[in-house]
């Protein structure tokens, strides 16, 4: 019973912080509520007793990506002070409605087969074995992609460094 | 905050409330007294003596006093050295940035009445207590480290004598001068100089 209580609690947290990310005036607060949202999602993972995934979520999303996002907010020029005008009301309403229809449609007509009862032993070892054996190719592709993005970042930083000296 | 100020009065009426209050006083005062974090406000020669007091032979740390850089975390300001009129607004600003139970030790002759610079000096403020209320004056030019330690111990006794919730009476009383609605800032005993005789840089007037 506590799992469902925690679940509703956490999903409430995630939804409210997501809402505040969108609607918040102050960009810094928006960044913080984004982090709160990530931590909420990590809580849901832990609640579904996948602790490794939850820890990874906290480490990667809340710990690194969101903080770099905050860096971006703080360092760029008067991003905080500028009042962003919000005149795309039409788009603002149209797209969420479409998304909602799509989601509800897929949820309704998907066949939910009940889980087979015995707990799936999804541990870190099986995850690692899967990486190294079945889908090794995908793993290497992701590594290449990350390398490319890293090099891109260095080039941009280097160019900016060069221009000032 | 003012609700807290009323509590001591109510507690006294409970049968042995007095004992409870004195116990609370003892604990709080001893804590405040034995861990005063001072903000070094080193202006001139007394700053060197203050550093010497903080060094190995006479050690401030034995009284539990650590040196904090920002005014926010300090509760004792040691004004060490000659205060000039150009520097006065900054001292006042820093004094106001300190959180509330704050004390001031004015170290050296210059902070009491201008010291050796009382005569023939146009730029020295004759006495720090003209702009901030001072609790302990340490005489000497510069005062010896033992004198400064003695001043700190005297301040600790002053703190131990306080009562929770009572308004603290401070030397260098401040009346409001009706003519210029400037705090009179004159010590009644010396009464040497009235404020309109001293031409303060006008930032000071804005601040005070």
């Amino acid at each position, binding site marked *: 019973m506590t799992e469902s209580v925690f679940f509703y609690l956490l999903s409430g947290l995630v939804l409210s912080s997501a809402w505040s990310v969108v609607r918040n005036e102050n960009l810094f607060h928006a960044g913080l509520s984004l982090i709160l949202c990530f931590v909420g999602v990590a809580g849901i993972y832990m609640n579904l007793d996948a602790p490794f995934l939850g820890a990874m979520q*906290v480490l990667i999303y809340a710990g690194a990506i969101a903080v770099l996002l905050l860096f971006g907010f703080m*360092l760029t020029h008067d991003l905080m002070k500028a009042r962003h005008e919000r005149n795309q009301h039409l788009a603002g309403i149209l797209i969420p409605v479409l998304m909602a229809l799509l989601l509800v449609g897929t949820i309704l007509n998907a066949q939910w087969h009940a889980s087979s009862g015995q707990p799936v032993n999804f541990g870190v070892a099986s995850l690692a074995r899967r990486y190294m054996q079945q889908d090794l190719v995908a793993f290497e592709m992701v590594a290449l992609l990350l390398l490319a993005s890293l090099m891109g970042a260095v080039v941009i930083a280097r160019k900016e460094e060069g221009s000032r000296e | 905050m003012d609700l807290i100020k009323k509590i001591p009065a109510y507690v006294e009426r409970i049968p042995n409330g007095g004992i409870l209050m004195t116990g609370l006083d003892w604990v709080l005062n001893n804590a405040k007294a034995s861990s005063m974090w001072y903000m070094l406000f080193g202006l001139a020669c007394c700053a060197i003596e203050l550093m010497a007091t903080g060094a190995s032979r006479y050690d401030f*740390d034995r009284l539990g006093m650590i040196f904090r*850089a920002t005014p926010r975390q300090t509760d004792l300001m040691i004004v060490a050295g000659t205060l000039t009129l150009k520097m006065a607004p900054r001292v006042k600003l820093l004094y106001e940035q300190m959180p509330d139970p704050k004390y001031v030790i004015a170290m050296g002759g210059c902070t009491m009445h201008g010291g050796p610079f009382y005569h023939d000096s146009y730029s020295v403020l004759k006495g720090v207590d003209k702009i901030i209320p001072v609790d302990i004056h340490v005489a000497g030019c510069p005062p010896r480290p033992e004198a400064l330690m003695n001043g700190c111990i005297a301040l600790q006794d002053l703190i131990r004598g306080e009562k929770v919730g009572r308004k603290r009476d401070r030397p260098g009383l401040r009346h409001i001068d009706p003519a210029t609605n400037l705090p009179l800032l004159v010590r009644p005993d010396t009464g040497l100089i009235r404020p309109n005789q001293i031409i303060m840089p006008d930032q000071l007037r804005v601040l005070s």
Partner: protein
Amino acid sequence: MDLVTAYTGQDVALVLIMLLMLALILGFIAGSSLILIWAERKVAARIQNRVGPMMTGPRKFAEFSMWTGGLLQTAADAIKLLVKELIIPSKTDAIPFIAAPVLIVTVCVTAYIVIPFGPAFSVSDLNIGVVHVVAISSLTVLSIVMAGWSSNSKYSLLGGLRSAAQMLSYEIPLIFALLGPILLAGGLSMQKMVLAQREYGCWFLLPSLLGFLIYYVASIAEVNRPPFDIPEAESELVAGYVSEYSGMMFAMFFLAEFANMFLVCSVAATVFLGGWLVPFMPVPDNPTPVYILLGILTFFLKTSFLVFIMMWIRWTFPRVRPDHLMNLGWKYLFPLSLLNLLICAGIAVLKDVYKLNGWGISLASLGALAMVMLLLQVVRIPRPDTFLEKA
């Protein structure tokens, strides 16, 4: 546990137990920080041949020896900070300003869950032990950035940005340094780590000595302690991101800094020095109370030894400049931690496939490391006087 479930349902008991455990950890942290802060001031005084706090605390200890004066000094500091006025400057943006100290203490408390104080004596032995500690402690960066940005002063903003950059860039060597022992232990949970060190025969310090050194240096940077304390560099940034905090909020930052230091040292002790393994005693299977006590004692001895070294380092080294710090972090620690991973992988393979004895392999790896160090001596870093003649 069963007593509680008798009265209430299964789940409510779980919540109650959790709250009890939380209170226990908070009490432990407060107690250990009190002693740690007092010990730091005494050790610093001893290094600088002056006398640390002497006036507070029981007087008869003070006469006994200089080392035991002023025991209640930190208690006095704490009570005084409680009574101080809390200043929230007007232009600061209040929510993150208040959330920052709260977050940093909660992060510290949650990270203590997995620390194995004794044989079966940890709050809850999650099977993702080490990763849990690292993941949670990556949130401290967030609280420092919040503190820096919201106190709306140039100094604290600079301090906040610098410390965020420092902690982010030192998390990576920290994690990689821990990978070595995880690989040897074959599991993430901390208790399993300690037990693995028992079967392995010797502490994980020997096979991954490089990992231990990198972990130790990276953890000093992670906890913002000198010589890497650029964020609150006294002489430059006027106490960095903490400069706007007063009273109890500052006390939380102060407490969190020491609790983090103890946390990081306890993880180092567990992973590298064999947490509660009493050095020369065979470990009985079902832990007798005597052995549990002995285990807890050795754990505390090892951690406090590491904490003492951190204090010692604090008062001897000058501060590192930010770009040298980043340089050290990325160009030296990170590649070395990869090398350490390689060494541990080699040892693990040797041990599993060829069933060699743990001691032999680790001594061999240490010999190899010594060889490398000798090679490095040839290319010596320029000493000052040689530098001058050359220039």
